[in-house]
């Protein structure tokens, strides 16, 4: 699977359907967390000249239960979400929120500075920032007058 901006092209016949995707996946019993690729967690990827940033919706997770590993060109995310402890005598009237463990790995398109990879968990969003190795950053070549 390529990482590209296909959904941002000028004309995209799928864009409206894609907006409804979360709704439908709930209606038909799939995890509302899953992205279009079907993998969990769904991830959005951002890029700048010097870094790559992965953003994932992972509400209600104890950061201790999240494990992010970078091994050369592979990023692996492992984690689990516990079921909230129900008070004694409680009866579930509705249970839609998922629980369990997950693993997802990503092949990175360029070398990263493994020592500087940073992960942040805030408001239920996990953000992993991967600074590009110098060799992967764009370099301006000065042109000498002949």
């Amino acid at each position, binding site marked *: 699977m390529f990482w590209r901006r296909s959904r941002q092209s000028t004309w995209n016949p799928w864009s409206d359907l894609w907006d409804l995707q979360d709704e439908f996946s709930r209606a038909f019993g799939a995890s509302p967390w899953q992205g279009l690729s079907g993998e969990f967690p769904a991830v959005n990827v951002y890029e700048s000249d010097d870094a790559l940033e992965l*953003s994932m919706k992972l509400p209600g997770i104890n950061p201790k239960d999240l494990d992010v590993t970078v091994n050369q060109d592979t990023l692996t995310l492992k984690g689990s979400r516990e079921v909230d402890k129900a008070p004694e005598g409680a009866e579930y009237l509705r249970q839609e929120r998922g629980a369990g463990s997950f693993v997802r790995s990503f092949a990175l398109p360029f070398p990263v500075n493994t020592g500087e990879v940073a992960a942040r968990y805030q408001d239920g969003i996990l953000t992993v920032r991967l600074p590009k190795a110098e060799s992967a950053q764009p370099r301006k070549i000065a042109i000498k007058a002949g």
Partner: protein
Amino acid sequence: MSTEVRTVNKDNEANVQRVERREAVVLSPAVDILETEKDVLLLADMPGVNEKNVDIDLHGNSLTIKGHRETPVPAGMELIRTEYQPDYRYERQFTMGDTIDREKITAVMKDGVLRLTLPKIKELAPRRIEVKAC
């Protein structure tokens, strides 16, 4: 379970702006609702929403929870792969029973999960109506 990653040619600037202008998609948060003898507990997954951006509206028997994100796109970065709509907000409406004590509803937001406690009105003591003979 792996996803190959490659950066391919970048689209032009106009398309990027087009995406930023797009209106936030409205999602319905997944919820758990539990009932105990004393109260009803509602848990809603709203990742990206913090206590400042969540709204709880009570209108008669109707309870509406709403939440939005402040900055979906990191500054100076470009979205290159999208598996979920980055600009979204949450909204969902529930109907409460008459047994809920509206004045005592409390809410806590933590790690993108909204936890609402809806206490029940203390059971009224059973009342016996005497029938008098005329």
